[in-house]
């Protein structure tokens, strides 16, 4: 799973670089617009350490944000699964709020909380929270009648058992959603950093943009891509391990 993901990323990344090079040489673009491969290599050697640390910094924020948002999504999803007034209210509110672009709220957070760690964390968590919440709400609201019937009619159904049954029956879907939300968390953190933060790979991209240095941006993209690929593969492996332990398959 891990080598496959990394290999897929390499193919996409180098196809993209290849496309840029074709454009550069066919349109005779200067090194200032699209740097030559040798310049890119030079930039990579020069910036590798700093950009790697920045990417790890971003990834750390994204992982913490994702964990928080998954926990929050499960808590709210479990409460919102009920067909009570509160449950319906949570569902409607979640559907409405998720339609609002969180990135548009980012400036408000930076104004109120400054450009530090908490703001980046909040943006990361908010961006991956709603898709996870909607999936959890959908899964938790749907009864698994052929299993739950017995527990209901014999008076054994408790909310913990209900959640356990629905989680177990939708384990593949849940692990896919959680693995997918990693990309969202990373994207959210980078966008937050790009807007106003003072650290992370998004901040480094902003500096590179001001310097019009495409080489640095491409190096940053490479590091972001490889980090997400590895993280997603690790999440998928974790999902498979949980599934194997729980289902015995």
């Amino acid at each position, binding site marked *: 799973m891990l080598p496959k993901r990394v290999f897929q990323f390499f193919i996409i990344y180098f196809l993209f670089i290849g496309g840029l090079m074709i454009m550069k040489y066919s349109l005779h673009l200067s090194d200032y617009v699209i740097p030559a491969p040798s310049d890119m290599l030079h930039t990579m050697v020069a910036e590798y350490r700093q950009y790697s640390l920045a990417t790890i910094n971003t990834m750390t924020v994204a992982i913490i944000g994702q964990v928080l948002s998954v926990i929050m999504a499960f808590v709210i999803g479990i409460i919102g699964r009920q067909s009570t007034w509160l449950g319906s209210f949570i569902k409607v509110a979640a559907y409405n709020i998720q339609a609002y672009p969180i990135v548009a709220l980012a400036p408000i957070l930076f104004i109120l909380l400054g450009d530090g760690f908490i703001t980046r964390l909040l943006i990361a968590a908010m961006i991956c929270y709603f898709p996870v919440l909607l999936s959890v709400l959908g899964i938790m609201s749907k009864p698994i009648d052929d299993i739950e019937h*017995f527990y209901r009619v014999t008076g054994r159904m408790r909310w913990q058992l209900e959640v356990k049954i629905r989680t*177990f029956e939708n384990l593949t879907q849940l692990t896919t959603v959680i693995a997918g939300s990693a990309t969202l968390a990373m994207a959210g953190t980078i966008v937050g950093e790009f807007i106003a933060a003072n650290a992370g790979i998004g901040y480094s991209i902003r500096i590179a943009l001001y310097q019009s240095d495409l080489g640095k941006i491409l190096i940053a993209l490479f590091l972001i891509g490889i980090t997400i690929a590895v993280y997603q593969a690790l999440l998928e492996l974790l999902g498979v391990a949980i599934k194997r332990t729980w289902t015995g398959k």
Partner: protein
Amino acid sequence: MPLICDNVAFTYPAAEHPILTNVSFNLSTPGFHSFFGPSGVGKTSLAKILTGDIAEYSGKVVTDGLKHLLYSHNKERLPGWSNVDRHLSRVIPQSMLAEKDRLVDVFGVSDCTKARFDQLSMGQQNRVNLIRYLLQDCDVLIMDESMANVDELTREKIILAIKDMFPRRYFIYISHNAMEVAKFCDSILVFRNSGKAQQTVMIQGCNMGRDDNISTKALDATLLEIMNAS
């Protein structure tokens, strides 16, 4: 503690025609009873009315003195996170745990209790599901094709064991097997094809027990009665 249905009628919300029209019967004694008839005539709907899963019907259902009415069907599953034996032990009341091993043995599933539910054959799954229902504290158990995919010999063995072990309980066995219901059931509520004036007819079955012998003539007569009624 009789189980009485008086002029029960029911139409599903989106349906044009009623599924049940003036169905009446009276089961005065516990034992093995049956709902028999072709698919889609309302057997399951009536079962759900009896257990209270369907409430918007007209007519009267009397279940006074009958504490718990359970409905089980052949599409049910046990959760897959642990093996069958562990599930059974967790859902069977302490007072009935002793009977679990006997039923597991009679039902022919002792070899597969260490397996998870989805690793069993359909017949084994239905038998395991039935065991957990039988070992609940209830007065009426409706078994909606609960022994589907189980071979005939084992089914006979199971029915006789159920009759032996739970003589004070009402069982309503929903089945499409005319021979089986004629042979083992005390009373058979036959659901007739649509277009007939009376939707159901109650017929006396042979109610065969473990030590009983029934004559072929009596069985044939019951079968004939069922066929004529349907």
